[in-house]
């Protein structure tokens, strides 16, 4: 199966109200053209799951700026003042999730777990509304999976089977988000044929990926 397609085709089933994961950390390793495609397609009422909201005109920050997001799961929003403003004024529902817990909740969804136990957040506001368990005398929070309809991720290179390689610190949340969504779309710099990527050096297997789009193409 050849997973290489256009952005237009890849995003065709994304709709208002979807839960969308966007990879990247402060925009590093976010998929810029896929984010722009969401805006062009005028997708609204998004539940966004992302490490942070970058800056106001950058990466997932654009979706906040244009008020496309109704609910946000993120670990850090301090770099985007507009996110803070919308939250304070009740326009945006924000659930702050510790970064390690965020990635474990995403992984749990992708990897079919019912949740994980962590000490992170015990004794803080993070424990509000969550089930607490004591195992061998240690107190844990039960953190449950975060699923998504769509994951928009970024990689350096894909083969046409959807196998991915990342570069530098750009892997961050992308690898686990690939597994956690019903539909995973990856934006890459380079696409090679099947057989041209060493199977030993694949970082995300193509089974998690539905569509591959190439950055900088005429993607109509």
């Amino acid at each position: 199966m050849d997973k290489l397609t256009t952005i237009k085709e890849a995003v065709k089933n994304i709709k208002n109200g979807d839960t969308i994961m966007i990879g990247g950390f402060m925009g590093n390793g976010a998929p810029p053209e896929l984010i722009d495609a969401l805006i062009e397609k005028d997708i609204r009422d998004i539940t966004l799951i992302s490490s942070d909201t970058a800056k106001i005109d950058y990466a997932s920050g654009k979706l906040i700026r244009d008020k496309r997001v109704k609910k946000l799961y993120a670990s850090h929003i301090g770099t985007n003042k507009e996110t803070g403003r919308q939250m304070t004024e009740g326009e945006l529902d924000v659930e702050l999730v510790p970064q390690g817990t965020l990635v474990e909740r995403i992984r749990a969804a992708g990897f079919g777990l019912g949740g994980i136990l962590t000490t992170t957040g015990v004794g803080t506001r993070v424990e509000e509304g969550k089930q607490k368990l004591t195992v061998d005398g240690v107190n844990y929070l039960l953190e449950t999976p975060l699923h998504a309809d769509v994951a928009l991720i970024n990689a350096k290179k894909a083969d046409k089977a959807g196998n991915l390689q990342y570069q530098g610190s750009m892997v961050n949340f992308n690898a686990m988000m690939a597994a956690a969504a019903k539909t995973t779309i990856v934006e890459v710099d380079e696409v090679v044929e099947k057989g041209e990527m060493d199977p030993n050096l694949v970082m995300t297997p193509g089974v998690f990926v539905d569509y591959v789009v190439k950055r900088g193409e005429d993607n109509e």
Partner: protein
Amino acid sequence: MNKEEMQTLIAKRVAYELEDQSLVNLGIGLPTKAANYIPDDVEVMFQSENGFVGLRGLKEDEEDDGTIVNAGGQPVGIEQGGAFFDSSTSFGIIRGGYVDCTILGALQVDLHGNIANYMIPGKMVPGMGGAMDLLEGAKKVIVAMQHTAKGSPKILNECNLPLTASEAVDLIVTEMGVIEVTNQGLTLIEYNPAFTIDEIKEATEAPLTIADDVKDMTLNI
């Protein structure tokens, strides 16, 4: 001391805590400055919680190609022997106890080692980022901060801001001194002779035990 002098003093003293061959995670802001003052005979690996070990500053002639940033989103480089990995592995390293020491700033710390550093309700809510995980997972937690905020103590009997973690802090380093958090409360083990012990006690809401062998903190740096 002006603010910059205080921060430099704190950064220098904190750097002295770092052990040879240890893995260290520095919070953004003041803690990051500690990296500039590590003794020559101490080799430390830095972890960046967004996904690598071997964090280093860009070299003077090195171009930023946009592929490597630190936990503050700033361009950085990677040391020889470093490695990139995904967020799940990165927080596995943190929660799994592989980070020997983390240095973080704080809004408040209290006598139980509770720490508040991620939100002021209704005012400033940056979020916890990786701080809650670091506070739970790192073997040693050092708070590096100015002793007071606009003259008000930050070292309290009980934090009144939302906690980032409970009973997590091992050591507090300020421009006034070095304070150990023990089961019996706070102990001043070093102090800056620019201040009197009474001035330090005055600037600290929580009761402060003075170690019998309390030392001059500026001698160590």
